């Protein structure tokens, strides 16, 4: 086995894993606060990618710079979705909640298809093809920037949740919904904010992903599944778990190409998923419920 190749792949996996972690962070936040599994998660990310793409094409603003705007747009989208749809299904049994969210994903995916057609789109940004070398390992600049920003955003979110008032309310509502209501927290508003924040986080991940990967309407559900795998791997509702899980999955997928064709990568991810669900269902960091 070529150790340089293995190292190369591992690093690539880590870099991508940071983004995976960010996507999963959004999903985990939504689950942690509301107990809802957002089956439309990947499609929201795709929406963000398209918004970012069009901002770049029409206004010339690089995705990394428009990130905050895109996140804000998707924040609003998330808020609307939560208050009009998800709110109504909060008390439904877990498995039934799946249905409207899957349908939402279907709607978002086909809206993208309707508006922007089926072709893959990739912005040719200034940094698109730049690489640099550390020893014998090649690193994409875009990938590195994406990783760094992903970590920064993750940390910002951790800090936000820990220190800010809203953050504390969110954590309270996640911990004990009834208790939160009893101390006067407007749980509806918190739910809306949490969902919106989760969506925005994922949107950020999408924007970071855009320079690395062309966007097309149908890539959404693959990312929803990836987010699931990471969240289950790290532990549902555990934010640190989402980050670590993302890194682990990134590396696992990447290094699997040493033994398997790249197109079978996901078999590895799904196998990890099933093994974790069977043998450690609470995830690597989840406590026993």
């Amino acid at each position, binding site marked *: 086995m070529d150790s340089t190749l293995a190292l190369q792949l591992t690093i690539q996996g880590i870099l991508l894993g940071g983004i995976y972690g960010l996507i999963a962070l959004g999903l985990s936040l939504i689950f942690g606060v509301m107990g809802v599994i957002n089956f439309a998660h990947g499609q929201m990310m795709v929406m963000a990618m398209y918004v970012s793409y069009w901002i770049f094409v029409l206004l010339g603003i690089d995705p990394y710079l428009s990130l905050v705007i895109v996140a804000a747009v998707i924040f609003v989208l998330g808020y609307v979705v939560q208050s009009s749809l998800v709110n109504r299904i909060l008390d439904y*049994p877990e498995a039934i909640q799946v249905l*409207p969210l899957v*349908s939402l994903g*279907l709607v978002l995916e*086909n809206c993208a298809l309707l508006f922007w057609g089926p072709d893959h789109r990739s912005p040719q940004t200034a940094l698109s093809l730049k690489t640099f070398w550390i020893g014998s390992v090649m690193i994409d600049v875009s990938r590195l920037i994406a990783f760094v920003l992903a970590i920064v955003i993750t940390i910002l979110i951790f800090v936000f949740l820990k220190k800010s008032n809203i953050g504390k309310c969110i954590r309270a509502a996640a911990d004990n919904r009834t208790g939160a209501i009893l101390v006067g927290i407007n749980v509806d508003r918190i739910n809306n904010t949490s969902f919106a924040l989760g969506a925005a986080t994922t949107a950020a991940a999408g924007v970071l992903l855009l320079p690395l990967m062309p966007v097309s309407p149908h890539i959404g559900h693959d990312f929803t599944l990836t987010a699931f795998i990471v969240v289950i791997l790290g532990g549902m509702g555990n934010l640190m778990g989402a980050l670590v899980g993302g890194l682990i999955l990134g590396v696992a997928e990447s290094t699997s190409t040493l033994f398997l064709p790249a197109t079978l990568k996901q078999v590895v991810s799904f196998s990890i998923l099933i093994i974790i669900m069977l043998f450690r269902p609470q995830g690597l960091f989840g406590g026993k419920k």
Partner: protein
Amino acid sequence: MIRFYLFLAIIFAVLLLLPLFLDNYILGIFVMIFYWAYVGQAWNVLTGYTGHISLGHALYIGIGAYATTYLALTFGLSPWIGMFFGGLIAAAIAFFLGFLGFRFGLRGVYFVITTIAFAEITRLIVSHIEALGSFTGIFLDFNPSFWNFQFRGNQPYYYISLGFMVVSLVVVRLLETSKVGRFMVAIREDEEAAQALGVNTFKYNMIAIAISAFMTSLAGAFYANYIFYLHPNTLFGMSTSIELILRPIVGGLGTLFGPVIGSFILTPLSEISRAYFAKGGLEGLHLILYGVLAILVVIFMPKGIIVYVKKLLAPILKSKIT
């Protein structure tokens, strides 16, 4: 009760005679109405009646399609026979999935994700098997004959598809009134209480998933010989898994006629919007309509449209006897 059976008999008679009056294209729409009603019914057995949600049911369609086709291409086996082997394979895989879910405790959302994972893994693996067409898929030669399960024109497919749908209704009706079906419903309603009343929940969960898988895979065999093209992304893909659940949900989850009603509403909608809008470049609109409808139904009419259909038909069906 008698009025209701009379009503059904009339509808059935009408459906039997329709091909005499309709052109081939419209017949094709009906083929799909019956097809999706059948598949939805098969899924209904596991999800509507027993309460375990599967978002990976395309797995069984794919198994049915590929197994039948492989046996036909390699051994010249008629799909009429091949489909039962496909069904057995589907049931076996369902048993495996069922084991993970019902014995190893992957329940609720974990079960849903497992069903997705199985379908996706199979899709990816089949995409790499040369003998099954790999990434290109398999194109079937057109050799029409009854034995080959291939026919000219939509009329024969219409009757076969109708037959499947009717048989599924009979099977599920028998299930509903039998011990097996009652236990399945009990599991859906409250699995723990069912255990306390002497129901071997593991056994009946496994029966449910096996029946559901077997039935679904027969549809795959039909599909392969109707469309003449197999591709893993269509047959095992998530879009198929999602498509097949929409009709029972909209029509009425866990009811006998829910999938049928749902299909009679959604399938023509899909065909019309696909034909009408796709030409104008509005591709995907029909799926948006589907999705919105499904969301609205789950939120505002969780029991499905069948509730309104029943109200509508009540005056016609009210029996003078009781």
